[in-house]
C-alpha cells in the first residue's frame, strides 16, 4: 500500500474574464498515514486551492491525485461527495457549524448523509464529542458555546466518520491565543494517540510549529518541504 495522498504535477487554472489565474503550478506531494503536516503560505499563495483539491471539494485542471489508492482527480460530483463523506474531515476557520442545531446533531451530519441509523448517529456523535472533551454538551446550541468549544464541535464532526485525513483550514484564525493552543493540542493529541493523519493550512508560524512536517507554498508551487521536531504538545 502506497502513501495516503499521492499527487503528481497538480495544476489549477482559473479564468477570470480574460485573465488566466494559475493558482497551482505543478504541485507534487506525498503524505503518509499518521503524519501531521502544516501547509504554510501567504494569502494568494495557492494553499487554499491545494487544500480544496486535496479535500475533494475541487478538481485539478491537470495532474493526478490518489487518495488512499483511489484516483479521485477525475471523479464526478457525487463520487467526490462520497469520498468527502468517508475519507475526509474538514475543520474551517469560522467553524461552520449549522446554527440553531445542537452540537450532537452537527456532529451527526456526516453519518446522516451516510445513511446511518439514528441510534448509531447519536452513539458515535457522543463518543466523538467526548474525544474532544465536550461530553455532556451534546444538546448545546452553537450560540451557547465559546469559540474554542465550537471549533471542538467542528473537530468532533470531522472525526465522527473515522476519516483517513483531517484537513484544517486556518483552524485557529478566529480564536484567541488560549483557545488556539487548546485546539492545536487537541489536534496533536489525536494525531499522536489515534494515529490520525492531520493537515493544517495556516499562515502562522507558531501554529505550524505543532506539525512534524512543514510545507511552504508560494505562487502556486511548493518551495520548501521539510520534516522537523514538533513543539512538545503538553497537556494533550
Amino acid at each position, binding site marked *: 500500500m502506497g502513501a495516503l495522498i499521492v499527487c503528481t504535477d497538480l495544476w489549477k487554472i482559473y479564468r477570470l474574464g480574460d485573465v488566466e489565474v494559475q493558482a497551482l503550478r505543478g504541485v507534487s506531494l506525498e503524505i503518509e498515514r499518521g503524519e501531521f503536516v502544516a501547509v504554510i503560505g501567504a494569502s494568494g499563495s495557492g494553499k487554499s486551492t491545494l487544500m480544496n483539491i486535496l*479535500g475533494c471539494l475541487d478538481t485539478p485542471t491537470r495532474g493526478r491525485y490518489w487518495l488512499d489508492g483511489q484516483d479521485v482527480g477525475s471523479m464526478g460530483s*457525487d463520487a467526490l*461527495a*462520497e469520498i468527502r463523506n468517508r475519507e475526509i474531515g474538514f475543520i474551517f476557520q469560522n467553524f*461552520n457549524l449549522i*446554527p440553531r442545531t445542537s452540537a450532537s446533531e452537527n456532529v451527526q451530519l456526516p453519518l446522516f448523509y451516510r445513511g446511518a441509523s439514528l441510534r448509531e448517529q447519536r452513539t458515535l456523535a457522543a463518543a466523538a464529542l467526548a474525544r474532544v472533551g465536550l461530553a455532556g454538551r451534546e444538546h448545546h446550541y452553537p450560540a451557547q458555546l465559546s469559540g474554542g468549544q465550537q471549533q471542538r464541535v467542528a473537530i468532533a464532526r470531522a472525526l465522527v*466518520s473515522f476519516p483517513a485525513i483531517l484537513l484544517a483550514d486556518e483552524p485557529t484564525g478566529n480564536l484567541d491565543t488560549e483557545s488556539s493552543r487548546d485546539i492545536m493540542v487537541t489536534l496533536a493529541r489525536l494525531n499522536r494517540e489515534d494515529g490520525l493523519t492531520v493537515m493544517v493550512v495556516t499562515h502562522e508560524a507558531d501554529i505550524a510549529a505543532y506539525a512534524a512536517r512543514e510545507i511552504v507554498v508560494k505562487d502556486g508551487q511548493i518551495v520548501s518541504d521539510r520534516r522537523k521536531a514538533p513543539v512538545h504538545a503538553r497537556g494533550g
Partner: protein
Amino acid sequence: MGAFILLTVLTAFRVLSRNRLRAGLTMLGIIIGVGAVIAMVSIGEGAKAAVRAQVASMGTNVIIILPGTTTVGGVRGGQGGAVTLTVADALDLKKKIPLLTETAWAKRDVMQIVYGNKNWNGPVNGVSPGYLTIRDWSYTSGGPITQADLDTAARVALIGQTVVENLYEVGEEPVGSTIRIKNVSFKVVGVLAPKGQSAQGSDQDDILFIPFTTAERKVLGTQFLGSVGALFAATDRPEDLPEAVTAVREVLRARHRLQPDQPDDFTIRTQVDIGRVQEGTGQTLTLMMFAVASISLLVGGIGIMNILLVSVTERTREIGVRMAVGAKRRHILIQFLIEAMTLSLFGGVLGIVFGILGARATTVVAGWPTIISVRSILVAFLFSLAVGLFFGLYPANKAARLNPIEALRYE
C-alpha cells in the same frame, strides 16, 4: 433512505418553526386557495345534490310527451298548441312497448277551488291513476284516485299541501269534505304528501288531482274526447330510458301517420334532460370557482418559491457545510423540496380545515346545502403537494447546484 427522509422532514419542521410568521404568511396563499376550493366545491356539490334530489322526486325513469307545434297557414303555434296526443296513444304505447311499465295521461288548467267560504286558484289536473304511480305521489291521509273513479268519472279529488293550507283551518281534516270547482262538487279522498320545490322552482304541492274523465267532461272541457295535455310513461330502470324514448317516438310517428320528411308533432322530454341543464349551470359555477381558487394556489406557489429562494441564499454557508461533509446534490435537492412541500402541505391541511368550516358556515348562515366530498379534500391535498413540488423545484435545484467552495466562502 427512509431515515434520511424522516430526519429531513423533522429538520424542515424545525427550520420552518424557527420563523413562524414567515412560514405562516408564505402558507397564506395556499390556505386561501385550498380553503376556497373546498368551500366552493362543497357548495357546488350541495346544489347539485339538491337538484338531483328534486329530479329524483319527479322520477328519473319518467318520459314526458307533450303535444307538438302546428303550423296553420304559416302561423306557428307554440308548444302544446296542437292537440295531437290522445288517450288511445297512451294505451297503444303501453301495449306495444314492453319496456314501459306504466303509461298515463293528464290535462290541466288553473281554476278556482272553493271550500266553504274560502277559495284558492290552483292548477286542476285531470289524470289517469297511472300518473300518480309514475310521479310517485304518496298520501298523508286518504288514498289515490282509482281505475273505477276514472271509469265512472267520479267526482273525487286529491289535494296538495299548499291547497290544504289555503283552504282549511289548521288541524281540520280535508278527507271527506266537499270542495267545488266550477260549481261541480268533489269529495276529497286524499291529501298528498309534500314534495317541495321542483327543479324549476315551482311549488309542486300547489296541486289538485281529479279523474281525467271527470275533468274533460265536467270541468276543463275538451276539443274532443280523449285529447290529452300530456302523456307520461315510465320504465323500470332509468338506464332503459333512451331505448324507451326511441320506441315511443317510432310508435307515435306510426300512429300519427307521419311521413319520414315530416317533423314530430310531439316533444319527448325526460327528467334527466331537465336535471342536466340545472346541473350544467352548477357545474359552470363550480368550474369558475375552481379557476379562481387555482389562481390563488398559483400565487401561493409563487410565494413559496420566493421565500425558498430567500432561504437558499440565507443558508448558502449551511449548504456548503452539508456538501463538505458528504451531502450529494440530490440530498440538498430533497431537503429543500421537502421544506417546500411541508409548507404547501401544511397550508393545504389548514386550507382544508378552513374550507370545511367555511362550508359549514355557509350552510348555517345562508342556509345553502353543502356537501364536503372526500374527493375534493383528496384533490386539494394532492394539489397543494404538487404546488410545493413544482414551485420548490427551482429553488431546490439552485441550492443543489451551488459550488461547495463558493458556498463555504459565502458571507
